[in-house]
């Protein structure tokens, strides 16, 4: 164990996996300069064949990832910002997500798409979307959202070794977050949620960047004797519904925090699933803490006003606990 930032944990995972598997090729925009630090040093270490700066052409690189994977390579494709995934969307939605199914499983597509997703840094509307609901709805790509540096390492290594297209979404503004990270071989399987903090009163499911404010809210509430169970799904595709519903059955109450626009957020999906499958266990309506259906604004005060926060999470928890069936 050593204390590292999330971006260093990712860098470590990339180096270890590229050392381990010489078939891996990594490409994307400015991966040599490494805007975020995750691909730092890779070009020097692995050379210009395996680590390639591409022009700014997402439509091509997202599709090249598919072609190179179909032709036998393990591919890491850096899309930079989540919003740039939209410009590469044909190859992602129509090719990567469908080629295996359409050809009846003739091929594997071992691709890891990296992108920074979500807001909180005054990057404004075109650099701040939380893109996981869009990707999760495609059906054919896996979506990984680490909530801690250790998870970032363990999940990225698993994503790279996975034989399917995986989106590894690093939460914007969380790259510098420190935490204990295991050295060397450390793998977290995709599709296994983690209970970050046990609690008896309410299940608080927090996705990706929302794990940190959820834990802070839980800590604060604990001081008042409210014990919140914080569940981190870690991957939204595949989704560990079993762990989430088991928690809901224990506590009888569910709040989901998701840094996505409300309509068709993963929070909405989880709320629907919990209502369908654990209705009998629910003591109060399910609450979702999401982003209103608007763009992410620039000015810090505006952005803070719409992103979920410790305060809005706390409020949702309190209101859910205070709910009484109307008489």
């Amino acid at each position, binding site marked *: 164990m050593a204390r590292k930032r999330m971006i260093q944990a990712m860098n470590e995972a990339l180096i270890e996996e590229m050392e381990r598997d010489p078939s891996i090729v990594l490409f994307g925009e400015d991966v040599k300069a490494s805007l975020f630090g995750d691909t730092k040093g890779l070009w020097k270490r692995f050379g210009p064949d395996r680590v390639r700066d591409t022009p700014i052409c997402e439509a*091509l690189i997202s599709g090249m990832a598919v072609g190179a994977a179909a032709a036998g390579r393990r591919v890491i494709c850096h899309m930079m910002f989540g919003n740039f995934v939209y410009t590469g969307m044909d190859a992602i939605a129509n090719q990567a997500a469908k080629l295996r199914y359409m050809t009846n499983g003739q091929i594997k597509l071992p691709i890891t798409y990296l992108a920074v997703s979500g807001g909180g840094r005054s990057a404004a509307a075109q650099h701040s979307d939380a893109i996981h609901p869009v990707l999760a709805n495609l059906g054919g790509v896996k979506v990984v959202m680490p909530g801690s540096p250790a998870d970032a390492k363990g999940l990225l290594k698993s994503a790279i070794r996975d034989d*399917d297209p995986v989106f590894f979404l690093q939460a914007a503004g969380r790259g510098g977050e420190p935490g204990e990270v295991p050295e060397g071989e450390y793998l977290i399987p995709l599709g296994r949620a983690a209970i970050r903090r046990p609690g008896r009163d309410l299940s608080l499911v927090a996705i990706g960047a929302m794990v940190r404010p959820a834990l802070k809210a839980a800590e604060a509430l604990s001081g008042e004797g409210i014990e919140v169970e914080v569940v981190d799904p870690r991957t939204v595709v595949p989704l560990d519904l079993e762990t989430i519903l088991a928690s809901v059955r224990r506590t009888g109450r569910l709040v989901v925090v998701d840094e996505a626009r409300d309509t068709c957020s993963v929070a909405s999906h989880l709320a629907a699933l919990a209502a369908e499958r654990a209705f009998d266990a629910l003591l109060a309506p399910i609450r979702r803490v999401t982003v209103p259906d608007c763009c992410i604004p620039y000015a810090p005060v505006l952005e803070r006003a719409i992103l979920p926060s410790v305060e809005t999470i706390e409020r949702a928890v309190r209101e859910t606990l205070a709910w009484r069936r109307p008489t």
Partner: protein
Amino acid sequence: MVVGGSNLPREELLEMYRRMVLIRRIEEQLARDCAAGKLPGPVHLYIGEEAVAVGVCRHLSERDWITSTHRGHGHFLAKGGDPARMMAEIYGRADGICGGFGGSMHVADFSRGIIGANGIVGGGIALATGAALAAQLDGDGRVAVAFFGDGAANQGVLMEALNVASLWKLPLILVCENNGFSEFSPTATVTSGSIAERARPFGVPFREIDGNDVIAVWQAADVAVRRAREGRGPSLIEARTYRTRGHVEYEVTFITEPYRDEAEVEAWRARDPIDRFARRLREEDPGVADELAAIDAAVEETMRAAVRFAESSPEPDPASARGQMFATAP
């Protein structure tokens, strides 16, 4: 045997003829099947364009990669795909090459380097560029060919591919089949300038050729494939051809106004790539007529066998409809 300035072995010429006729007979059958209501989905026929797929694919082995288009039966067959399993796929049957999950627009056979037909216009270009990158890294002389139409030439991804393939000297051959129509729009109404010359500013060699002349296609592809195998980078070939059928076989049911002149179609039919090639072969060697007739008969039987195979194949099991989304199931 010297045909059209080429000096190709007789067997090679006859094999090119055989493959073109195979594509033609299979697709004529599909046209009949479609008219008879036997096909569950849309089919886009390649009739009249066979020389392009065959002239290019004769330079490729099963280890080379191709990506194709929504009009992809010809590429599949020219690259050595199994006609019976393709037919079963288009019939929506369990023994189809994709188990009935893909259909006409997605026939693929990765074991033969056929990354597949593609329902997205221009969708194969980036895939072929990626396969070319993998081939370059493997360093074993493999190449990737992207077949695409004049319609796809107007997708931005072509420019992106020309740029990257040229920068990285990828073993990529971009083959534009300019068949005169972008779905229902005549090419000239939606395309400015020359498609071939779009390669020029990227430093990519290009040629515009008669796509209805299989020898001309063979010769242009020979140069481009050789260049790619030698690590000298990509090329673009614009093959001028003509789509003698409609965009899609069902179009008579929804296109009410004619979008082209019947005289134009007739003029191109007179330049049919198979008739022209057979005529040249006979001119060169009158004795070849018997061999061509034997090929015709054998292909006819292959087509009938493909239909029998497809018809006798069961429909897929509805319980399998969720298919194989992931290699590692969640």
